[in-house]
């Protein structure tokens, strides 16, 4: 019979709007989590699939030795698509001239992600190559090679023992990479014609790649099979999220931001549920007392209200799921139109997460109020002051805190991030309790001197001291989270903006002969093109560290027993495996930051070298280590005197090794620089570089375009996240205001009866919410700084900074938003006359 009563209570209360806030809070929690996680997952999948183009595949296996055919055959068993790619340097001959080129031999199916673009003439209008590759006997070459060798489309070039017709101009390869020192023009040939060139000999400096495309499940299953057979000295397995490129870092940062934003939604929704649950249970104290008086046992009451709550929760979750799906579908549609791309479908995980969030929020946060509700004594029918026992209050805090942390962890699966937010929230709570206590004490005195509206407002705050402390906690949390998103958005976007300024160089010029430097600079000046600094470049190899040779490319002697060498000599470091571009400079380059050691004096005569931080870390190099270099047969040693951090995202010329002038000035060098030329002026390039045939030009426009597109997607996502968190915050505030309405109603009856004017009541209510909001804003700003400090330093690996404007924005926005919401929520209350209010209360 109790289930009938439970169902009836739910039906009637829903119909009468009594459960609106409670249901809205759960709907909000589920909607926020589902729409956000669906959107995040689809966007991330979209980002990864777009980014997969940078690899031309979903995963790449790289090797210094030929890759076993069996491994490729096995990939087909896992239903993966594969393609092979072999990359090496060689010389190309044509028209009696020769040039160093990067040969890329690819099999059918390449590229598995992204596309090749070609043109009919050098620097001509590009078009997609579709699924085409060079025909047998054909090669496609970059514009720079046409320029260097004076080629025309249809001419013949000689590579090793083979001859190829240069059929098209290669303008874009998805996997060209970010390294600006791939300074030789690329030539694309067919994989099955590679052997005929006779260029691949034991010991050749060749990189073998197998490209894979398929679903995550297939890729992971294949990797599980492959991993035990890989030798980390020879093989590397890469996805787009690995590696150290600016894109990979941006993706990682974006992923963390999405995660964080999702967590904010969860905490806000849980707060709304907690507030609504408390109010819901308080409103049912009388009902429980009446039902107990009429003969209901504790078990019956328990069954009635637990079922009531479960039904309400399930009902709200279903609505939340529908609404969440609808919202993300709208946003995804909009994003798809904006970006001209479609995003992949999401898995079932977001639905499970949203449902668990709804269940955990509703059940964990209502457990304590429900316990109190069930314990309401029947005697309350005669004595309305009786409200059951409050001795398990600690349980409430434990359950709430545990539920929030569990949700954070469940949702982020990132202990550090969850803990930072949790600790931030806990700190806010403690600080809030202390500050609000002080404030209430001060207001007791200040209120006595203030005008009547202020006095009433202060008195209101004072009277509801305990409730206000809890309300302030929620207001502060909401404002803190909003500030945090604003701050992070600003910080992250600013960081990205710094990475890619509007005038980021889109061309690199390399191989500038010393005698051409002046003439080239004149040409640039004549055409009003500004360039970055000119850097001299000397090619050289790093051969030893502290007297111990580095392990470099496979040599003929070592090819057979490389693995043994690696295990036998742990001191031996892995080298670069290629020639490095070495430079010298008197001053620290812009966008570089010294991490250790000191920069040299311009006139220093002792040899010194400064090493890039990531290289230093990978090769375990420290200030004071001696590095040995070989430049054109000349071998010398220099000490490391500094370690530099380089911002690779600037697309300026950057170097792993920078020497002082004394070391390198005597070696023959070429020069390198970068410049920005807008797209419409692209046709000027051919004329500009015609007098400098040996100069190579590297087009970064396509790369920058791709990177900017990814960042545009991330920025849009951040905008969406912000709107969602803002909405969740406003709803929490409304739930809070609603929670205090009953008590306010009682006060208004008294004040109205005593003749208080609407104006006075309006003002006192506005001021009360304003003070509450402003104080919450101050606390929010403080807590936000703390959390941001932890996040910036620990999670996002940025440098910490203070955000003074938020100390103004926090209290101001808190005061305005809470006052407006409070006034709106109390609007109907103040307009009622005393008789109506009294009738309502009785």
């Amino acid at each position, binding site marked *: 019979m109790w289930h*009938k009563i439970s169902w009836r209570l739910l039906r*009637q209360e829903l119909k*009468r709007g009594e459960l609106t806030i409670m249901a809205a809070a759960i709907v909000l929690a589920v909607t926020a989590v589902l729409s956000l996680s669906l959107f995040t997952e689809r966007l991330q999948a979209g980002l990864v699939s777009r980014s997969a183009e940078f690899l031309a595949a979903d995963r790449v296996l790289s090797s210094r030795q030929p890759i076993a055919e069996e491994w490729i055959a096995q990939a087909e068993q896992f239903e993966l698509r594969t393609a092979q790619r072999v990359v090496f340097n060689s010389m190309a001959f044509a028209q009696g001239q020769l040039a160093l080129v990067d040969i890329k031999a690819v099999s059918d199916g390449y590229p598995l992600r992204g596309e090749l673009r070609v043109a009919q003439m050098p620097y001509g209008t590009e078009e997609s190559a579709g699924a085409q590759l060079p025909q047998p006997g054909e090669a496609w070459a970059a514009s720079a090679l046409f320029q260097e060798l004076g080629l025309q489309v249809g001419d013949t070039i000689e590579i090793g023992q083979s001859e190829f017709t240069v059929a098209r101009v290669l303008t874009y390869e998805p996997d060209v990479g970010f390294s600006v020192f791939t300074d030789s023009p690329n030539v694309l040939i067919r994989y099955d014609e590679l052997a005929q060139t006779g260029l691949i000999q034991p010991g050749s400096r060749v990189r073998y790649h197998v490209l894979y495309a398929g679903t995550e499940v297939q890729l992971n299953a294949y990797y599980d099979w492959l991993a035990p057979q890989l030798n980390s000295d020879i093989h590397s397995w890469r996805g787009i999220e690995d590696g150290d490129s600016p894109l990979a870092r941006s993706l990682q940062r974006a992923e963390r931001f999405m995660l964080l934003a999702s967590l904010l939604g969860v905490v806000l929704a849980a707060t709304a549920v907690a507030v609504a649950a408390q109010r819901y249970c308080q409103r049912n104290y009388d009902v429980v007392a009446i039902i107990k008086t*009429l003969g*209901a*046992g504790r078990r019956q009451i328990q069954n009635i209200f637990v079922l009531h709550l479960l039904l309400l929760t399930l009902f709200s979750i279903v609505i939340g799921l529908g609404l969440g799906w609808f919202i993300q579908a709208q946003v995804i549609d909009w994003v798809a139109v904006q970006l001209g791309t479609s995003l992949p479908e999401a898995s079932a995980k977001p639905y499970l997460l949203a449902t668990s969030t709804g269940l955990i929020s509703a059940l964990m946060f209502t457990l304590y109020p429900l316990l109190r509700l069930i314990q309401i004594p029947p005697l309350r029918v*005669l004595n309305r002051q009786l409200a059951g026992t409050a001795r398990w209050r600690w349980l409430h805090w434990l359950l709430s805190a545990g539920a929030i942390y569990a949700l954070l962890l469940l949702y982020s699966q990132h202990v550090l991030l969850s803990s930072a937010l949790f600790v931030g929230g806990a700190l806010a709570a403690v600080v809030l309790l202390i500050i609000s206590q002080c404030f209430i004490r001060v207001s007791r005195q200040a209120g006595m001197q203030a005008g009547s509206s202020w006095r009433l407002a202060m008195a209101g705050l004072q009277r509801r001291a305990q409730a206000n402390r809890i309300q302030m906690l929620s207001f502060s949390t909401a404002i803190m989270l909003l500030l945090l998103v604003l701050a992070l958005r600003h910080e992250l976007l600013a960081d990205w903006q710094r990475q890619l300024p509007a005038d980021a160089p889109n061309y690199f010029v390399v191989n500038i002969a010393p005698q051409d430097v002046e003439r080239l600079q004149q040409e640039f000046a004549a055409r009003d093109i500004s360039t970055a600094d000119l850097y001299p470049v000397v090619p050289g190899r790093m051969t030893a560290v502290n007297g111990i040779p580095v392990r470099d490319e496979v040599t003929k002697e070592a090819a057979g027993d490389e693995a043994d060498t690696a295990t036998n000599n742990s001191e031996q470091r892995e080298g670069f495996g290629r020639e490095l571009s070495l430079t010298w400079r008197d001053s620290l380059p812009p966008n570089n930051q010294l991490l250790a050691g000191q920069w040299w004096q311009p006139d220093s005569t002792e040899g010194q070298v400064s090493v890039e931080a990531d290289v230093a870390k990978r090769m375990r190099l420290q200030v004071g280590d001696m590095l040995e270099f070989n430049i054109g047969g000349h071998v010398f040693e220099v000490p490391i005197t500094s370690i530099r951090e380089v911002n690779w995202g600037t697309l300026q010329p950057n170097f792993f090794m920078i020497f002082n002038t004394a070391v390198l000035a005597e070696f023959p060098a070429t020069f390198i620089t970068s410049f920005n030329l807008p797209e419409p002026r692209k046709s000027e390039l051919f004329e500009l570089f015609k007098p400098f045939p040996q100069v190579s030009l590297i087009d970064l426009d396509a790369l920058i375009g791709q990177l900017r597109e990814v960042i545009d997607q991330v920025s849009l996502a951040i905008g969406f996240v912000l709107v969602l968190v803002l909405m969740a915050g406003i709803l929490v505030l409304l739930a809070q205001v609603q929670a205090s309405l009953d008590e306010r109603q009682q006060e208004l009856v008294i004040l109205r009866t005593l003749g208080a004017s609407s104006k006075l009541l309006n003002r006192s209510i506005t001021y009360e919410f304003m003070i509450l909001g402003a104080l919450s804003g101050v606390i929010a700003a403080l807590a936000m700084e703390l959390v941001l400090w932890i996040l910036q330093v620990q999670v996002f690996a940025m440098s910490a900074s203070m955000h003074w404007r938020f100390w103004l924005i926090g209290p101001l926005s808190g005061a305005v938003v809470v006052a407006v919401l409070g006034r709106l929520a109390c609007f109907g209350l103040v307009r009622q006359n005393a008789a109506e209010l009294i009738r309502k209360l009785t």
Partner: protein
Amino acid sequence: MLIQTLQLEKKVTTQEGILHILQPIDLAIEAGETVAIVGASGSGKSTLLALLAGLDIASSGQVLIDQVNLSALDEEQRAQLRAEKIGFIFQSFLLIPSLTALENVMLPAELAGQKNAEQQARELLVKVGLGERLTHYPNQLSGGEQQRVAIARAFIGTPKILFADEPTGNLDAATGRKIEDLLFAMNEQSGTTLVMVTHDSKLAQRCQRILTMEAGRLTEVPADVA
């Protein structure tokens, strides 16, 4: 003997010391009697009502309902006893605001597991003159109408005892008289034992016995004096 108290006492400990709300009370009420308990505010009459109905626990002494000692029952058993034998009418009506008049009346019968709760409730509401207002919510009814619903609720399941706490205290004089008439008429029809707490001496005089509560002491006013 339907209701009996033996040395029933209620005291609470305050900062100033022990406060005796009820001095030891011995009382016996036969089945079918109508009893009024009168007294000033704070004299302890509502406390006595709460103890008699098993809503509160005595400090010492016993309450026997139908020979069952309430002190020996736990909260669950006392609730069970209320469900089976006791009906209530309160000054502030105490209807559940989210349930209709019909649903409010059905509630005690449903809690007691009776199957024809709705039929009984409809008949009772017709009897109290609210046959047309079954689906109205408490806030859509006047004070008098709400108390009629409460009376109907009190009589569902034909309780042996009806406890009424100031049943007309929140009503105007004319409505109050109508409610009194209805209450006594229904009580007479069902033969229920009525124990009523009231300020109203006129209302008290309609009862067979009048008990006066003064500073926690209960004395019976002889019928010829009342």
